[in-house]
């Protein structure tokens, strides 16, 4: 096994944040397979192909959604462009019994949890708040206030402990909380670290450091590499190359296994890059240089996995043709589903506010129903 010296990420302006903080890497940007003393992964040829397939399909969902927003079909879209490997790697590391708490950008993790992309589009179209069943999918609804979900994840992990669901290396449960570099400044994230640490919760804090919180660089959030924050809270932290799907998979799997066997929390900092805008409402040309984007483009998570597959001779032209056809079909289905998505019934906003409906809200609902009925009479 060769221990290579991974190159420090050449992100301009990130020197301050990168003192010898070499991320775990198993796949170079050129698609060369490298090895790491602490983390490794051996997958079948089919599994390697499946990971690449995930990356491609997830990017296609993202591109299609961005286009739909530009065409006025979505109110907004938060693109994951550039973060596919961090999300697919961590998402595929989850076992069925694990529970994930996403932000609003975890479209790749949602894919891995079997969420129909149309559910995501429903949220950004304004037809719902997501609408999938968090209990069945073990994937919480998107949480939009920055960092709030890390406490929910910690509480959920406390429940896993109380249920005695932690300990067994196969059936043991773990929780993963997603958040970003900006969220690391939130009080809730720091409280989640404290709670998880003192109770020894079975949780992985998965921070996608995509270098930007809208227009604010990570240097404004922290003076040390984010993964090093964990030490102060009393649990391990590790930085992984977030554009390397194999490394992300290996590191997350190890952290989840530590959690499920009762070894407590881990902070994983996936060092990656938000290739697109914060959302479709954002204009990154106002605050970052094109050269930075170009430097990261050379580390594209899809390209390196594609190079790896070629170099290992795991794929042929039929594979890519089929994948392209599948991506086209997925895109067509998303587009059609989005255009055909019905608006919710206006009266539905009064339902499910409470488990036990209140008399005042029931009255307000009835009054509004009467009001709406008046219009219906007039038009008919």
């Amino acid at each position, binding site marked *: 096994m060769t221990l290579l010296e991974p190159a420090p990420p050449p992100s301009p302006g990130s020197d301050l944040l990168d003192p010898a903080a070499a991320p775990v890497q198993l796949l170079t940007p050129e698609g060369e397979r490298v090895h790491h003393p602490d983390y490794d992964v051996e997958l079948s040829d089919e599994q390697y192909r499946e990971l690449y397939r995930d990356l491609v399909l997830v990017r296609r969902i993202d591109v299609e959604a961005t286009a739909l927003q530009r065409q006025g079909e979505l109110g907004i879209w938060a693109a994951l462009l550039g973060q596919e490997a961090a999300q697919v790697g961590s998402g595929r590391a989850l076992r069925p019994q694990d529970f994930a708490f996403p932000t609003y950008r975890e479209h790749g993790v949602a894919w891995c949890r079997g969420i129909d992309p149309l559910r995501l589009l429903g949220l950004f179209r304004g037809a719902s708040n997501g609408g999938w069943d968090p209990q069945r999918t073990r994937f919480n609804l998107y949480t939009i206030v920055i960092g709030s979900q890390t406490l929910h994840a910690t509480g959920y992990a406390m429940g896993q402990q109380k249920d005695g669901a932690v300990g067994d290396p196969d059936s043991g449960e773990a929780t993963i909380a997603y958040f970003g570099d900006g969220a690391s400044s939130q009080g809730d994230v720091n409280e989640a670290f404290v709670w998880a640490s003192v109770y020894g919760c079975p949780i992985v804090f998965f921070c996608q450091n995509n270098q930007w919180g809208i227009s604010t660089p990570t240097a404004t959030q922290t003076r040390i590499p984010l993964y090093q924050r964990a030490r102060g809270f009393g649990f391990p932290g590790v930085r992984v190359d977030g554009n390397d799907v194999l490394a992300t998979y290996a590191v997350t799997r190890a952290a989840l296994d530590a959690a499920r066997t009762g070894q407590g929390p881990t902070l994983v900092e996936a060092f990656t890059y938000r290739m697109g805008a914060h959302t479709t409402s954002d204009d990154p040309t106002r605050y970052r240089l094109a050269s930075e984007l170009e430097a990261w483009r050379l580390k594209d998570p899809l390209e390196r996995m594609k190079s790896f597959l070629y170099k290992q001779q795991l794929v042929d032209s039929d594979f890519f043709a089929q994948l392209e056809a599948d991506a086209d079909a997925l895109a067509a289905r998303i587009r059609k589903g989005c255009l055909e998505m019905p608006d919710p019934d206006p009266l539905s906003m009064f339902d499910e506010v*409470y488990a036990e409906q209140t008399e*005042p809200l029931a009255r307000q609902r009835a009054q509004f129903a009467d009001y709406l009925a008046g219009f219906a009479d007039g038009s008919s």
Partner: protein
Amino acid sequence: MPVLTLAKALNEALRSAMERDPKVVLMGEDIGRLGGVFRVTDGLQKDFGEDRVFDTPLGESGIVGTAIGLAIRGYRPVCEIQFDGFIYPAYDQIVSQLAKIRARSRGQVPMPVTIRVPYGGGIGAVEHHSESPEAYFAHTAGLKVVTCSNPADGSAMLQQAIASDDPVLFFEPKRRYWEKGEVDPAAVPEPGALWKARVVRPGRDATLLAYGPMVRTCLEAAGAAAEEGRELEVLDLRSLSPLDLPTVLESVRRTRRLVVVHEAPSYVGLGAEIAARVSEELYYEMEAPVLRVTGFDTPYPPSRLEEEYLPDLDRVLHAVDRSLAY
């Protein structure tokens, strides 16, 4: 029936709730070995273990945020916020998450979380220990907000709040913690009663509407008024959200006069909402406008001034006089 203080009645209610449902867990600052700064959880950790009654790190957002996660996992957490003025660090989790998760998930994720909050003034405390923040929460859809005025209600209402699948802010009038009353801890509260106001003292000349610590103040005022031949009806609102308007209207329809009393400041407080509702419904039947007796629109003052700040018997009767003079 045993005679218990409010604090002890709440303690027994927590015990009953925990015996009834193994998913009920208590969490908060200093609630374990110490039994809480007001001793409401006294002895419960000893009897139910540290898994079900546990001290948390010092962070209110952390308490409520992790309670939400426990609820997603299927638990029924009861959080203690040590004092009213310390709830604001948790405000975001309560308003943006706890209140909305049921609706966000279209009913797939219930939030059976109870947040107990000792509130109100009159105990000679320093800043942030005497506040009445109930209106902030009553304004938020998805939350239910209740408060008790006596040991019997405290016992029944807390058990109902914990059994509810909706998030409930349970405000405890801390200056009444040591007042005693008959309580039947084994009584099974009737369904739906938690959201009902109650006529505490019947009368015909005017209605005094209060909740929490002010109910006793209004009862004392009604007693004093009776000596002058005025029969004041006293209503204990109990549920601040939802509002039991029918019971309020039934009373005011008879008395035609309403004075609302609360410790919280008047501006955009519960009294404002009640005045608006009553005016909408009884515009032609009222003999006088709805009046309010409240704390002032100032920060809660240093405690040497709290007797002046808090509504008392004289201020309540002064308002009654104004109402009757219309």
